[in-house]
Protein backbone atom coordinates (compact mmCIF):
# COMPACT_ATOMS: atom_id res chain seq x y z
CA UNK A 1 0.00 0.00 0.00
CA UNK A 2 1.34 3.43 -0.90
CA UNK A 3 2.30 5.46 2.17
CA UNK A 4 0.87 8.98 2.16
CA UNK A 5 1.74 12.03 4.22
CA UNK A 6 -1.84 11.99 5.56
CA UNK A 7 -1.43 8.48 6.92
CA UNK A 8 1.66 9.35 8.97
CA UNK A 9 1.10 10.27 12.61
CA UNK A 10 3.41 12.11 14.97
CA UNK A 11 4.51 9.73 17.68
CA UNK A 12 4.39 6.64 15.45
CA UNK A 13 7.38 4.33 15.49
CA UNK A 14 8.96 2.99 12.33
CA UNK A 15 10.00 -0.64 11.98
CA UNK A 16 13.19 -1.56 13.82
CA UNK A 17 16.22 -2.77 11.91
CA UNK A 18 18.59 -5.11 13.76
CA UNK A 19 22.19 -5.64 12.69
CA UNK A 20 24.83 -7.86 14.24
CA UNK A 21 27.83 -7.27 11.99
CA UNK A 22 30.75 -9.66 12.29
CA UNK A 23 34.19 -8.83 10.95
CA UNK A 24 33.18 -10.20 7.54
CA UNK A 25 30.31 -7.71 7.25
CA UNK A 26 32.65 -4.89 8.28
CA UNK A 27 35.03 -6.02 5.53
CA UNK A 28 32.16 -5.85 3.03
CA UNK A 29 31.35 -2.37 4.32
CA UNK A 30 35.01 -1.34 4.05
CA UNK A 31 34.98 -2.47 0.42
CA UNK A 32 31.69 -0.71 -0.31
CA UNK A 33 32.60 2.55 1.40
CA UNK A 34 36.33 2.67 0.66
CA UNK A 35 37.09 3.00 4.39
CA UNK A 36 39.84 0.46 4.98
CA UNK A 37 40.83 1.92 8.36
CA UNK A 38 42.43 -1.07 10.16
CA UNK A 39 40.59 0.02 13.32
CA UNK A 40 37.57 -1.74 11.81
CA UNK A 41 39.11 -5.08 10.82
CA UNK A 42 42.62 -5.50 12.29
CA UNK A 43 42.85 -6.45 15.97
CA UNK A 44 46.61 -5.78 15.86
CA UNK A 45 46.31 -2.18 14.70
CA UNK A 46 47.69 0.12 17.48
CA UNK A 47 44.40 2.03 17.87
CA UNK A 48 42.46 -1.29 18.06
CA UNK A 49 44.85 -2.53 20.75
CA UNK A 50 44.47 0.69 22.69
CA UNK A 51 40.67 0.41 22.59
CA UNK A 52 40.79 -3.34 23.27
CA UNK A 53 38.94 -4.36 20.12
CA UNK A 54 38.19 -3.40 16.57
CA UNK A 55 35.12 -1.18 16.39
CA UNK A 56 32.24 -0.84 13.95
CA UNK A 57 32.69 2.05 11.48
CA UNK A 58 30.72 5.06 12.65
CA UNK A 59 29.70 5.49 9.03
CA UNK A 60 28.31 1.95 9.00
CA UNK A 61 25.89 2.99 11.74
CA UNK A 62 25.03 6.16 9.82
CA UNK A 63 24.31 4.01 6.77
CA UNK A 64 22.15 1.70 8.90
CA UNK A 65 20.10 4.71 10.06
CA UNK A 66 19.71 5.47 6.36
CA UNK A 67 18.61 1.90 5.59
CA UNK A 68 16.06 2.02 8.43
CA UNK A 69 14.56 5.24 7.02
CA UNK A 70 14.72 3.89 3.46
CA UNK A 71 12.87 0.71 4.46
CA UNK A 72 10.11 2.78 6.09
CA UNK A 73 9.92 5.33 3.26
CA UNK A 74 9.98 2.58 0.59
CA UNK A 75 10.74 5.10 -2.20
CA UNK A 76 7.44 6.94 -1.54
CA UNK A 77 9.49 10.09 -1.14
CA UNK A 78 13.04 11.34 -0.72
CA UNK A 79 15.35 11.91 2.21
CA UNK A 80 16.15 15.63 2.43
CA UNK A 81 18.49 15.51 5.41
CA UNK A 82 19.91 12.79 7.61
CA UNK A 83 22.20 13.46 10.54
CA UNK A 84 23.88 11.51 13.29
CA UNK A 85 26.44 11.81 16.05
CA UNK A 86 28.68 9.01 17.28
CA UNK A 87 28.26 9.00 21.03
CA UNK A 88 29.46 5.49 21.74
CA UNK A 89 31.49 2.76 20.15
CA UNK A 90 29.91 -0.40 18.84
CA UNK A 91 31.73 -3.68 18.55
CA UNK A 92 31.49 -6.60 16.10
CA UNK A 93 29.19 -9.55 16.83
CA UNK A 94 26.99 -7.42 19.08
CA UNK A 95 23.49 -6.26 18.25
CA UNK A 96 22.95 -2.79 16.85
CA UNK A 97 19.25 -1.99 16.93
CA UNK A 98 18.05 0.88 14.77
CA UNK A 99 14.81 2.59 15.81
CA UNK A 100 12.86 5.64 14.71
CA UNK A 101 9.94 7.81 15.78
CA UNK A 102 7.94 10.35 13.78
CA UNK A 103 8.34 13.62 15.67
CA UNK A 104 6.83 16.18 13.32
CA UNK A 105 4.90 16.52 10.07
CA UNK A 106 4.24 19.76 8.20
CA UNK A 107 3.92 21.30 4.76
CA UNK A 108 6.26 23.96 3.44
CA UNK A 109 6.63 25.50 -0.04
CA UNK A 110 4.39 22.80 -1.49
CA UNK A 111 6.40 19.95 0.06
CA UNK A 112 4.92 17.37 2.43
CA UNK A 113 7.56 16.94 5.10
CA UNK A 114 8.13 14.56 7.99
CA UNK A 115 10.86 14.68 10.61
CA UNK A 116 12.00 11.58 12.47
CA UNK A 117 14.27 10.86 15.41
CA UNK A 118 16.37 7.85 14.45
CA UNK A 119 19.00 6.15 16.54
CA UNK A 120 20.92 2.96 17.16
CA UNK A 121 20.96 1.19 20.51
CA UNK A 122 23.38 -1.48 21.63
CA UNK A 123 22.29 -4.68 23.35
CA UNK A 124 22.45 -2.90 26.74
CA UNK A 125 19.86 -0.42 25.53
CA UNK A 126 22.38 2.43 25.35
CA UNK A 127 21.93 4.89 22.48
CA UNK A 128 25.26 5.02 20.66
CA UNK A 129 24.23 6.87 17.50
CA UNK A 130 21.46 9.46 17.89
CA UNK A 131 20.24 11.06 14.69
CA UNK A 132 17.44 12.78 12.80
CA UNK A 133 16.03 12.57 9.30
CA UNK A 134 13.72 14.83 7.31
CA UNK A 135 11.89 13.33 4.35
CA UNK A 136 9.50 14.69 1.75
CA UNK A 137 6.60 12.48 0.65
CA UNK A 138 5.45 12.15 -2.97
CA UNK A 139 1.79 11.75 -1.94
Amino acid at each position, binding site marked *: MTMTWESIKEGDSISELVKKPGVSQLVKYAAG*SGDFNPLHHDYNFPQSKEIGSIIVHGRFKYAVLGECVSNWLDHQGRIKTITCQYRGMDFPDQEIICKGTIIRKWQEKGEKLVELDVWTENSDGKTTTPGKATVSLKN
Partner: protein
Amino acid sequence: MADSFEISEEMASMVGWESEPWIFEVSRSSVRAFARGVGYTDRVYYDVEKAKEAGYMDLPAPPTYLGTAIFIPGESHEFLPTPPGFNPDLKHNLKGLLDGGAETTYFSDICAGDELTCVRKTTNLEKKNSKGLGDFLIVSSDLTYTNQHKKVVAVQSTQAIFY
Protein backbone atom coordinates in the same frame (compact mmCIF):
# COMPACT_ATOMS: atom_id res chain seq x y z
CA MET B 1 46.11 10.56 23.98
CA ALA B 2 47.20 14.19 24.26
CA ASP B 3 48.14 15.40 27.75
CA SER B 4 47.45 18.94 26.76
CA PHE B 5 46.81 20.59 23.45
CA GLU B 6 46.13 24.10 22.22
CA ILE B 7 44.87 25.43 18.90
CA SER B 8 47.75 27.53 17.57
CA GLU B 9 47.30 30.68 15.50
CA GLU B 10 48.61 28.78 12.49
CA MET B 11 45.95 26.07 12.98
CA ALA B 12 43.22 28.67 13.50
CA SER B 13 44.18 30.32 10.22
CA MET B 14 43.18 27.12 8.40
CA VAL B 15 39.49 27.76 9.08
CA GLY B 16 38.10 28.59 5.65
CA TRP B 17 40.68 26.43 3.82
CA GLU B 18 39.27 24.69 0.74
CA SER B 19 40.57 21.61 -1.06
CA GLU B 20 40.99 21.25 -4.78
CA PRO B 21 38.02 19.39 -6.31
CA TRP B 22 38.10 15.59 -6.46
CA ILE B 23 35.92 13.18 -8.39
CA PHE B 24 33.62 10.70 -6.67
CA GLU B 25 32.14 8.11 -9.01
CA VAL B 26 28.68 6.61 -8.59
CA SER B 27 28.47 3.45 -10.67
CA ARG B 28 26.12 0.48 -10.65
CA SER B 29 28.91 -1.64 -9.16
CA SER B 30 29.72 0.90 -6.49
CA VAL B 31 26.05 1.37 -5.49
CA ARG B 32 25.60 -2.41 -5.24
CA ALA B 33 28.86 -2.74 -3.28
CA PHE B 34 27.79 -0.08 -0.76
CA ALA B 35 24.31 -1.57 -0.42
CA ARG B 36 25.87 -5.01 0.08
CA GLY B 37 28.30 -3.59 2.62
CA VAL B 38 25.46 -2.23 4.74
CA GLY B 39 23.34 -5.35 4.25
CA TYR B 40 20.45 -3.88 2.24
CA THR B 41 17.97 -6.43 0.91
CA ASP B 42 15.84 -3.85 -0.97
CA ARG B 43 16.19 -4.85 -4.63
CA VAL B 44 15.77 -1.23 -5.78
CA TYR B 45 19.45 -0.69 -4.90
CA TYR B 46 20.58 -3.72 -6.92
CA ASP B 47 18.12 -4.22 -9.82
CA VAL B 48 18.02 -1.49 -12.48
CA GLU B 49 14.50 -2.37 -13.64
CA LYS B 50 13.17 -2.17 -10.07
CA ALA B 51 14.97 1.15 -9.63
CA LYS B 52 13.29 2.57 -12.73
CA GLU B 53 9.88 1.25 -11.63
CA ALA B 54 10.45 3.10 -8.34
CA GLY B 55 10.99 6.33 -10.27
CA TYR B 56 14.79 6.62 -10.41
CA MET B 57 16.95 7.16 -13.51
CA ASP B 58 19.16 4.21 -12.48
CA LEU B 59 20.23 2.48 -9.24
CA PRO B 60 19.81 5.15 -6.52
CA ALA B 61 22.71 5.86 -4.19
CA PRO B 62 21.70 4.48 -0.78
CA PRO B 63 21.30 7.12 1.94
CA THR B 64 24.72 8.41 3.11
CA TYR B 65 26.50 7.04 0.02
CA LEU B 66 27.98 9.94 -1.96
CA GLY B 67 30.09 8.04 -4.45
CA THR B 68 33.54 6.47 -4.27
CA ALA B 69 36.57 8.73 -4.54
CA ILE B 70 38.89 7.95 -7.43
CA PHE B 71 41.87 6.17 -5.89
CA ILE B 72 45.44 6.93 -7.04
CA PRO B 73 48.14 4.69 -5.48
CA GLY B 74 50.93 6.69 -3.87
CA GLU B 75 48.74 9.80 -3.73
CA SER B 76 45.51 8.73 -2.05
CA HIS B 77 45.54 7.83 1.67
CA GLU B 78 46.65 4.27 2.25
CA PHE B 79 43.43 3.21 3.99
CA LEU B 80 41.06 6.14 4.62
CA PRO B 81 38.58 7.12 1.90
CA THR B 82 39.82 10.75 2.01
CA PRO B 83 41.13 11.86 -1.40
CA PRO B 84 44.64 13.34 -1.76
CA GLY B 85 44.74 16.95 -0.63
CA PHE B 86 41.44 16.68 1.27
CA ASN B 87 42.98 17.09 4.72
CA PRO B 88 43.94 20.59 5.78
CA ASP B 89 47.55 20.57 7.02
CA LEU B 90 46.83 21.39 10.65
CA LYS B 91 50.09 19.97 12.07
CA HIS B 92 48.31 19.05 15.29
CA ASN B 93 50.39 15.86 15.83
CA LEU B 94 47.46 14.10 17.44
CA LYS B 95 47.58 10.41 16.58
CA GLY B 96 44.10 9.19 17.43
CA LEU B 97 41.18 9.75 15.06
CA LEU B 98 37.48 9.19 15.63
CA ASP B 99 34.50 10.18 13.53
CA GLY B 100 32.29 12.61 15.45
CA GLY B 101 29.22 12.70 13.24
CA ALA B 102 27.74 13.86 9.98
CA GLU B 103 24.82 15.76 8.50
CA THR B 104 23.89 15.18 4.87
CA THR B 105 21.52 17.45 2.97
CA TYR B 106 20.25 16.31 -0.42
CA PHE B 107 19.10 18.65 -3.18
CA SER B 108 18.63 16.06 -5.92
CA ASP B 109 18.64 12.32 -6.58
CA ILE B 110 22.04 10.70 -6.92
CA CYS B 111 22.09 7.60 -9.14
CA ALA B 112 24.48 5.19 -10.79
CA GLY B 113 26.03 6.95 -13.78
CA ASP B 114 26.53 10.22 -11.90
CA GLU B 115 30.00 11.67 -11.59
CA LEU B 116 30.25 13.92 -8.54
CA THR B 117 32.91 16.54 -7.95
CA CYS B 118 33.56 17.29 -4.31
CA VAL B 119 35.25 20.21 -2.59
CA ARG B 120 36.01 20.08 1.13
CA LYS B 121 36.10 23.21 3.27
CA THR B 122 37.26 23.51 6.89
CA THR B 123 34.53 25.40 8.72
CA ASN B 124 35.57 25.27 12.38
CA LEU B 125 38.21 24.10 14.86
CA GLU B 126 37.30 23.53 18.48
CA LYS B 127 39.24 22.20 21.45
CA LYS B 128 37.40 20.16 24.07
CA ASN B 129 38.30 17.87 26.94
CA SER B 130 36.84 14.62 28.19
CA LYS B 131 37.79 12.03 30.78
CA GLY B 132 38.18 9.35 28.13
CA LEU B 133 40.16 11.26 25.52
CA GLY B 134 41.86 14.09 27.42
CA ASP B 135 42.23 17.21 25.29
CA PHE B 136 40.86 16.68 21.81
CA LEU B 137 40.41 18.67 18.61
CA ILE B 138 37.15 18.75 16.64
CA VAL B 139 37.65 19.62 12.98
CA SER B 140 34.38 20.55 11.25
CA SER B 141 34.19 20.40 7.47
CA ASP B 142 31.63 20.94 4.73
CA LEU B 143 31.84 18.73 1.64
CA THR B 144 29.93 20.04 -1.38
CA TYR B 145 29.05 17.54 -4.12
CA THR B 146 28.25 18.76 -7.63
CA ASN B 147 27.12 16.44 -10.40
CA GLN B 148 28.08 16.27 -14.08
CA HIS B 149 25.35 18.82 -14.87
CA LYS B 150 27.05 21.29 -12.52
CA LYS B 151 24.20 20.97 -10.03
CA VAL B 152 24.91 20.82 -6.27
CA VAL B 153 23.32 17.51 -5.31
CA ALA B 154 24.41 17.19 -1.69
CA VAL B 155 26.30 18.89 1.09
CA GLN B 156 27.73 16.88 3.96
CA SER B 157 28.94 18.49 7.19
CA THR B 158 31.27 16.30 9.20
CA GLN B 159 33.17 16.36 12.46
CA ALA B 160 36.50 14.59 12.87
CA ILE B 161 37.90 14.13 16.38
CA PHE B 162 41.67 14.07 16.83
CA TYR B 163 43.07 13.07 20.22
